């Protein structure tokens, strides 16, 4: 839904009402790259549109950052953007203008990069880059770009949400890349730039935190505070013992909760932790919780524990239904390999089984398959008491038989007591068989079979 261009000649002075182009997000740090698998693109990248020629030979050896060049009257816009970038950030990389010839228009592509892509040490260079002013500017640019994007898409800038932005970007810059995080994105700067530590010391050079010189001030400060809580608890315990009062025995139920994971703790402290550090912290918390008067510090401990949602889901056994003849029936579904079966088991039957409209003797001529069908009924001593109507598709004869067996066992649950359901479960009648065909691997003839070994 791109607005048509008034003129497509190169160098035309036609300025669009919104002169500033979409501002691309700044390149992300390598620390961000380490934390997330793939960093966001340095800029919005336009794919090669039909007609856009590949870059000129001058491009060789230079790292590329492509500005937005999808729009056709972008030539003038591109020139403005190029001038802006060259003025602002030329010290950090090569700025090269590549004129890409196209069938319809010649677009100027800016090629620009920064050392952020390969620089390793974040701490030494970090704080200067992400200053408050910088982030604020990024947020302003993002909001401006959001409005331009909304105008471009012909939508209302006031009610343009993040989902609309994502859809618009996906439309304007379609990408065939598999990893979602490698595709062009336009997000709020707080989501792109990680929350970084600002400079830790004041004007006179004195650090703000008293544990600054340890290197891991947040972590050690946390250990210090937790240990202080532990000392409090021990003091309280001693006081209770001195007054001959029994220590409180109401233990907090730890079953439904878990401690913070290492990643969550790192996010909380804004600091990298080692595994040993993390385990030491958890051990200290455990000690605090398991000590007799530990519930004094419950509020403090709550900050580091999370609820786990109920994992066990009670399987609901459906009640019996009755058809118009008054006969009770129940349905079940089963699968095995690639077969899928649905089964209806009727009460007051004679043991008649119909599969896909065909009698079982004709559908399953092999005894083994019919034994499989019979197994649930035999297990529950209900061999001649039920009728069964099945539909099955996919797979071969053995897997279809297994699918029907599972489906009929599931249907029979409704007819039977809970204890017998438990017996069935233990017998393996209610478990889906997870075995599927193993894939063939390259360099081998089959999944396991290797090619014939020839001595020479």
């Amino acid at each position: 839904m791109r607005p048509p261009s008034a003129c497509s000649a190169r160098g035309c002075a036609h300025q669009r009402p919104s002169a500033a182009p979409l501002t691309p997000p700044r390149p992300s740090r390598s620390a961000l790259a380490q934390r997330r698998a793939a960093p966001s693109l340095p800029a919005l990248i336009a794919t090669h549109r039909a007609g856009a020629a590949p870059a000129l030979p001058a491009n060789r050896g230079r790292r590329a950052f492509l500005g937005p060049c999808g729009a056709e009257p972008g030539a003038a816009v591109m020139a403005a953007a190029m001038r802006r970038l060259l003025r602002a950030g030329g010290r950090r990389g090569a700025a090269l203008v590549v004129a890409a010839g196209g069938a319809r228009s010649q677009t100027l592509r800016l090629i620009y990069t920064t050392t952020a892509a390969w620089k390793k040490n974040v701490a030494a260079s970090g704080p200067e880059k992400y200053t408050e002013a910088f982030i604020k500017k990024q947020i302003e640019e993002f909001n401006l770009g959001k409005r331009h994007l909304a105008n471009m898409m012909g939508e209302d800038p006031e009610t343009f949400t993040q989902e609309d932005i994502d859809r618009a970007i996906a439309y304007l810059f379609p990408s065939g890349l598999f990893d979602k995080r490698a595709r062009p994105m336009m997000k709020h700067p707080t989501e792109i730039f990680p929350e970084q530590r600002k400079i830790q010391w004041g004007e006179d050079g004195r650090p703000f935190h008293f544990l600054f010189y340890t290197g891991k001030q947040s972590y050690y400060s946390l250990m210090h505070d937790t240990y202080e809580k532990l000392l409090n608890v021990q003091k309280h315990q001693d006081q209770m013992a001195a007054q001959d009062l029994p220590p409180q025995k109401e233990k907090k139920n730890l079953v439904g909760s878990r401690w913070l994971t290492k990643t969550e703790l790192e996010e909380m402290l804004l600091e990298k932790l080692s595994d040993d550090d993390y385990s030491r912290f958890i051990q200290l918390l455990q000690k605090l919780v398991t000590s007799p008067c530990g519930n004094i510090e419950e509020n403090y401990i709550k900050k580091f524990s999370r609820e786990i949602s109920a994992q066990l889901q009670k399987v609901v056994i459906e009640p019996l239904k009755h058809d118009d003849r008054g006969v009770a029936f129940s349905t079940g579904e089963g699968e095995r390999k690639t077969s899928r079966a649905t089964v209806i088991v009727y009460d007051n039957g004679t043991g008649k089984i119909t599969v896909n409209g065909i009698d079982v003797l004709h559908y399953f001529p092999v005894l083994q398959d019919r034994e499989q069908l019979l197994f649930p009924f035999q297990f529950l001593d209900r061999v001649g008491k039920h009728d069964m109507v099945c539909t099955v598709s996919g797979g071969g004869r053995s897997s279809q038989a297994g699918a029907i067996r599972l489906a009929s066992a599931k249907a029979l649950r409704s007819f039977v007591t809970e204890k017998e359901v438990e017996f069935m479960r233990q017998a393996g009648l209610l478990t889906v068989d997870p075995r599927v065909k193993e894939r063939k691997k390259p360099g081998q003839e089959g999944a396991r079979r290797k090619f014939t070994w020839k001595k020479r």
Partner: protein
Amino acid sequence: MPSRARQYDRPASLPAAAPRLYSSLPAPVPAPAPAPAARSPGPGADDRLLTEPLSQPDFFNVKELFSLKDLFNARVHLGHKKGCRHRFMEPYIFGCRLDQDIIDLDQTMDHLQLALNFTAHIAYRKGIILFVSRNRQFCHLIESTAQECGEYAHTRYWQGGLLTNAPIQFGSGVRLPDLLIFLSSLNNVFEPHVAIRDAAKMNIPTVGVVDTNCNPCLITYPIPGNDDSPTAMELYCKLFKMTIIRAKDYRKQREVFHELQSKAEGN
């Protein structure tokens, strides 16, 4: 006097410090450096602020904070067994009783007075003081002490390049500590703490409590005394905290006084 070269990027707002002195003679008045407008007292008042405490040997009167009886009650004189004795601690040992070394408390008194006096001067000049100890038993106590007197503590695992590689570890423009106080100069494997050597490398003065099994060599102001008893450690923490707070309060007082004076002169 050589200027301190270890501060990599000196903030421009700090005035040039007076040269460090090792005696109690009054400092020669330095040439009036152009002080930036941010500092409240004028350039002349700045010199007076810095040179005033250097007029007397025990300007902050740290002697009154402790007595020999206090040291004895806190079990500061108790050393380790004879077999653990370090050769260089022999001058500080009074004697040996039932194989246990007893530290000479008269010498300890003198050393403690010098050390506390030096700490007070550093605190008066707004220096950064770092408490170091690797004794797990007193880690929390020392950190709390440092927090209460507004200084810094490091009672955890010492990362190799903290002092020698500070711009890389912390970022450029970091200011290093001006004094290291060791409340236990050994680490957990009974070897001298790495920070003693690093501070000597970086020309940072050190104050340290040295027990009979410690090496007092590289420590600028050693304090022979017990570093294992809780009572002794609590006493040291209390003494250092009181000196630092006293010196800082005095400094605030003098700054306010000079400010008022300069205002009055201005009017």
